[in-house]
């Protein structure tokens, strides 16, 4: 209770006066101190994001909602508001701009991902169909698909004779992730599939993949992926960066599953949670970088 009151008093009154005092003494505003005091990446961008969010100034808060094309203008406005002279702090402008590109980029990445997720897989859409058949060819190069609706889909871990019902809540995003992994990390994807088809330690490759898309999606939505993207992308993160993160999860989950040797597939959710927890723990580290360590080809 006391902690709560203290936090309230701090964020609403003390923080403001403290900032004012430091400003008078050092002659720099909080954003300047953040940009020069912390190394580029999650630490700096997260601090800048918090500072902008809790600002009483409309221009500063508004910068978080700005479009990419307006960002430079926003930075200029902020410098004017805060009376930052380019000559005195020449690096500030570029640094703040990168922070803002990362912060606003994360939001637009979520919008793009959400659009793909909401688009249901449709057998009537030739593009979707082509993508699905491509997935088969990438994973099973030596086996021909006998027909579009066939039990063979089970060999790459779909549930029934027609994969279309398995995409469900993840829509096209689930399929794109599966294809991206198989296309850019073909060797690793086929190796994971061979582990998945192990008679005793196996799992359903495709639907576990769709489940991992859900994991990546939820982590993105909750904001948990911010440190990863702030550390690894020096600008706005794009869809391919999200797909790369999926590849990391797919590869690492397979490794984790093989190492854990679960009793049977019925324990999937328990191991999924354990894996999820370890990913979330990594994301708490300031230097987190969830990039798949094998080179793509």
């Amino acid at each position, binding site marked *: 209770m006391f902690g709560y009151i203290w936090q309230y008093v701090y964020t609403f009154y003390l923080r403001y006066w403290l900032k004012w005092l430091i400003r008078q003494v050092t002659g720099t505003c909080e954003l300047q101190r953040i940009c020069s005091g912390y190394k580029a990446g999650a630490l700096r961008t997260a601090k800048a994001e918090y500072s902008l969010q809790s600002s009483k100034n409309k221009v500063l808060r508004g910068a978080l909602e700005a479009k990419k094309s307006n960002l430079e203008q926003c930075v200029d406005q902020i410098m004017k508001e805060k009376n930052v002279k380019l000559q005195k702090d020449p690096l500030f402008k570029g640094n703040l701009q990168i922070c803002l590109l990362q912060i606003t980029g994360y939001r637009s990445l979520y919008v793009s991902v959400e659009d793909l*997720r909401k688009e249901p897989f449709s057998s009537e859409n030739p593009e979707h169909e082509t993508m699905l058949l491509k997935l088969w060819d990438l994973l099973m190069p030596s086996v021909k698909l006998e027909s579009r609706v066939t039990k063979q889909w*089970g060999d790459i871990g779909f*549930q*029934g004779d027609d994969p279309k*019902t*398995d995409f*469900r*809540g*993840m829509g096209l995003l*689930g399929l794109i992730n599966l294809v991206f992994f198989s296309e850019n990390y073909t060797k690793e994807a086929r190796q994971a599939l061979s582990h998945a088809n192990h008679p005793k330690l196996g*799992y*359903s490759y495709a*639907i*576990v993949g*769709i*489940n991992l*898309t*859900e994991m990546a*999606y*939820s982590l993105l939505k909750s904001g948990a992926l911010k440190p990863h993207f702030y550390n690894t992308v020096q600008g706005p993160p794009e869809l391919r960066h999200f797909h790369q993160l999926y590849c990391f999860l797919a590869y690492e989950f397979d490794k984790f599953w093989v190492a854990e040797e679960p009793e*049977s*597939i*019925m*324990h*999937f*959710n*328990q191991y*999924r949670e354990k894996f999820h927890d370890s990913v979330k723990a990594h994301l708490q580290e300031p230097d987190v970088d969830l990039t798949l360590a094998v080179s793509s080809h």
Partner: protein
Amino acid sequence: MGLLSILRKLKSTPDQEVRILLLGLDNGGKTTLLKQLASEDISHITPTQGFNIKSVQSQGFKLNVWDIGGQRKIRPYWRNYFENTDVLIYVIDSADRKRFEETGQELAELLDEEKLSGVPVLIFANKQDLLTAAPASEIAEGLNLHTIRDRMWQIQSCSALTGEGIQEGMNWVCKSVNSKKK
């Protein structure tokens, strides 16, 4: 929480636990149904690998609902969850006519299981929100439900997506548990 419900909580005995098994073919809507029962978001559902379990309070019962994945590969594991089941809920995709025969066969096999003998069964004719859904009466006839004599049974049309019909089904579940315990 209101004062009345606090008083009620203090007064009443702990809820009686009921074990409910949720089975059916893949893509029938079991997980969506489970999440609806627990008033959770149903927009991000993915195929169930293994099982999900949730506890829901309803009419003085604590319903422990086990949602087991329906894909053919894991159906052999269903039997591991039969023990001590109070009510079986069998979910059917009413619009997936191509698999009516398959779903009927699985249900018939379940009703023959010794560990499930006498266990009341509720059949949810799900996905009634789809235009192509078969009505519950047609499904009941197709599955020969009227030949079931060794237990209480009920078929209820519903839409796990919109929530329609679920409460009616769950009322029947609670009623059947009550009459079994007497």
